[in-house]
C-alpha cells in the first residue's frame, strides 16, 4: 500500500467513532426536528407526517415575534454585561496575575463541577426574601423590609452573567495572553499613556477574542430557559420557555420544532457574522 493511501485509511479509522457519534446524536436529531417542523399536529398532540409551512407562518406572526425580540434583548444585555465584566478579568489574569494566572483560570472552572441547576438554585436562595443579600441589607440598616429581588430582570441578568462569564473570559484571555508585550511598551515609548495604549493597541489586537467571547455568550443566551424561569419568574416569554411549553404543555411538537429551527438559524447567523468580522480583522493584519 502506498504511504498516502495507508495514512488516509488510518485517518478514516481513527475518525470513524467521532463521526458516528456526531451523526447519531447531532445530525440525525437535527434532521428529525427539522422534519417535524414541517409536519402537522393532530388533536391529541401527536405528529402527522406531511409538508406544510403553516408552523413557520404562525411563527412570524405578531405573537411569537415578541418572543424573539425578548430573547434577543436578554441575550444582547447578557453579552454586553459579560464583555464589560469579563474583559477586565481576562486582562488582569493575562497581564497582572503573573504566576497566579493559571490557578485563577482553574478557579473560574470550579463552579462547573456543580450541576447547573443547583448553582442557579443557589442564586434563588441568595436573592430570596429571606436570603443572604436581603438579610445583609436589613442587618446593615439599609432597608427596613426585604427587597423583592427575585422575579426581576435584574435577577435574571445576574444569573445569566454568572452562568456565561467564564465562556467570555477564556477567549479574551486567549487573545490577550500571547500579545507581544513589546507592542504595549512601544505604545508607551511613542508617548501614549496607559489608557491610550489600551485603546489604540491592546483592545484592537484583542478584538478577535472579544468577538469569540460575544459569540460564545450570545448563542447559548438565546436558548436559555432555566435561568429566566427560576430567577426572573418567567414573566417574559423567551425562546427557551416557549419551546418547553410548546413541546410539554401545549403538545404542539411541530410548532415547537419550528421555533427550535428558527433559533438554530439565529445561532448560525451569529456564527456567520462572527466569521465575517474575524476574516475582516485578519485581512487587516
Amino acid at each position, binding site marked *: 500500500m502506498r504511504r498516502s493511501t495507508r495514512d488516509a485509511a488510518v485517518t478514516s479509522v481513527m475518525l470513524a467513532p467521532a463521526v458516528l457519534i456526531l451523526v447519531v446524536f447531532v445530525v440525525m436529531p437535527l434532521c428529525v426536528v427539522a422534519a417535524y417542523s414541517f409536519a402537522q399536529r393532530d388533536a391529541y398532540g401527536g405528529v402527522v407526517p406531511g409538508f406544510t409551512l403553516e408552523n413557520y407562518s404562525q411563527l412570524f406572526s405578531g405573537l411569537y415575534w415578541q418572543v424573539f425580540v425578548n430573547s434577543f434583548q436578554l441575550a444582547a444585555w447578557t453579552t454586553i454585561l459579560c464583555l464589560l465584566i469579563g474583559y477586565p478579568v481576562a486582562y488582569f489574569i493575562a497581564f497582572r496575575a503573573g504566576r497566579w494566572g493559571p490557578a485563577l483560570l482553574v478557579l473560574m472552572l470550579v463552579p462547573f463541577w456543580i450541576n447547573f441547576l443547583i448553582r442557579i438554585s443557589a442564586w434563588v436562595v441568595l436573592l430570596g426574601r429571606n436570603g443572604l443579600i436581603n438579610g445583609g441589607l436589613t442587618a446593615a440598616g439599609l432597608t427596613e423590609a426585604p427587597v423583592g429581588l427575585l422575579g426581576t430582570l435584574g435577577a435574571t441578568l445576574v444569573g445569566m452573567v454568572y452562568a456565561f462569564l467564564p465562556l467570555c473570559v477564556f477567549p479574551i484571555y486567549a487573545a490577550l495572553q500571547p500579545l*507581544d508585550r*513589546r*507592542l504595549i*511598551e*512601544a*505604545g*508607551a*515609548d*511613542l*508617548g*501614549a*499613556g*496607559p489608557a*491610550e*495604549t489600551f485603546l*489604540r*493597541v491592546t483592545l*484592537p*489586537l484583542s478584538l478577535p477574542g472579544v468577538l469569540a467571547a460575544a459569540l460564545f455568550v450570545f448563542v447559548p443566551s438565546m436558548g436559555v430557559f432555566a435561568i429566566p424561569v427560576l430567577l426572573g419568574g418567567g414573566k417574559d416569554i423567551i425562546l427557551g420557555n416557549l419551546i418547553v411549553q410548546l413541546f410539554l404543555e401545549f403538545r404542539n411538537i411541530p410548532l415547537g420544532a419550528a421555533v427550535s429551527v428558527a433559533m438554530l438559524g439565529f445561532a448560525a447567523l451569529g456564527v456567520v457574522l462572527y466569521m465575517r468580522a474575524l476574516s475582516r*480583522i485578519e485581512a*487587516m*493584519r
Partner: protein
Amino acid sequence: MTVEGLGAQHCAPMAPKSGAAAATPAVELLAVTKRFGNMVAVDGIDLAVREGEFFTLLGASGCGKTTTLRLIAGFELPTGGHIRIGGQDVSEEPAYRRPVHTVFQSYALFPHLTVSENVAFPLRIRRLAAEERRRRVLAALDLVQMSGLQDRRPAQLSGGQQQRVALARALVNEPKVLLLDEPLGALDLKLRKEMQTELKHMQKRLGITFVFVTHDQEEALAMSDRIALMHEGRIVQVDDPTGLYNAPVNRYAAAFIGETNLLSATIDGGDDATLRVRWLGHHVVLNRPAGAAPSGQAVTLAIRPEQIVRAPSPEEERAGGLAVDGVLTESVFIGTDLRLIYRVETGETLICRVQNRAAATPEPGERARLLLPRGALRCLTS
C-alpha cells in the same frame, strides 16, 4: 543609504535642538542599579552620553546592556540611582513622559496598522493636525526610503523593510535621544553592513543622540563615536573605538574586543615612570601603568596579532621589545588575512596576523623569529 536624496525641508524638522547647553549630557546615569529579585542586572553604573553622539553599549549577552537601555527608555525603573535626560531627572517618570523613542530588536510594529498609520502613531498621540501629520509621515518614510509602501501591513514587509518603518516611527516625533536595541540583529550579513552605514549617516545628518545596544564588537567599532563596554552589570571601559581597541584597560576588555595575545608575565623592577617586565626570560621596559606594584607582581602583557613582526629587521629589533623564536603550528586562511599560530619556547602560543599575499603562504613547521615591539605591548594589571 545615500542621504543626498533628502529634501532640505524634510530634514529640517529633525535637526538637533541647539538651545540646550552643549555641556549638558544628553543622557546621564548616576550610580544606577537595577535588581530583579536577587539578580543584579545593572550594578551602580555611571554614564554620560554627549549630545549628538553615537554611543554604543557593548557586551556579551547578560551583561546588562539591554536593561540599561530599558532603564533609559523607562520600561524599567531603577532600584537605585538617577537617570537624567537633557539635564532633567526622569528616574521616576514613566516611559510615555520621556523624550526618547526606541527602535526595538523585534521592531514591535503594530500589526493592525498600516505602515503610515504606524509612523503616524506618535503624531496622533500628540494630536497633530491631519495635514501636518501626513507631511511628517511622508518625510520620515522618505528618510528611510520607504515611500510607496505606506498602505502595506507590517506582515507584508521583509525584515529589512520592517526595520526601516520602525526607524521612521521612532524618528518622526524628533526625539532628543533615539534608543536602539540590537536593531540589526535579525538582518542577514549583507543587509546588516548596509544598514550600519546608513544608520551612521542618518545619525550624523540628523544630529540626534543615538544610544545603541549591540553584542557585535565589529558593529560597535564601525558605527560608534564612543563605546561603553559592559560586563556583569558594570562598565568596564568607556572610550572611542580606537581607544577601546588599542588601549584596553584590563584583560576582559583586551580579550573581548578583537583578538589578543594575553601573556602571563612578571614585574621585575622599574622606577616611577617605567616598569621592567619579564616574560619567558626576556625583559622589556614599558611605561608604568596605574596600579602596578614595584616588583614580583604577576601581570598580563597584551598584544594584537597584527602587531607582531615576523622576521624583524635588525633596526626593528634594536627599537626594543620581546623577541622570541617560534615554530608555525597552524596557518588559517581567513580571506584578507592569514592567521598564523606559533609555538614559542615554553609551549606558549602566539597568534600572529598577516595580510594575505598569494605569493608566500607559510607552511606549518616553518621557524620564524617573532618580535613583540615595545610600543605594541600593553601591561595589564587586572
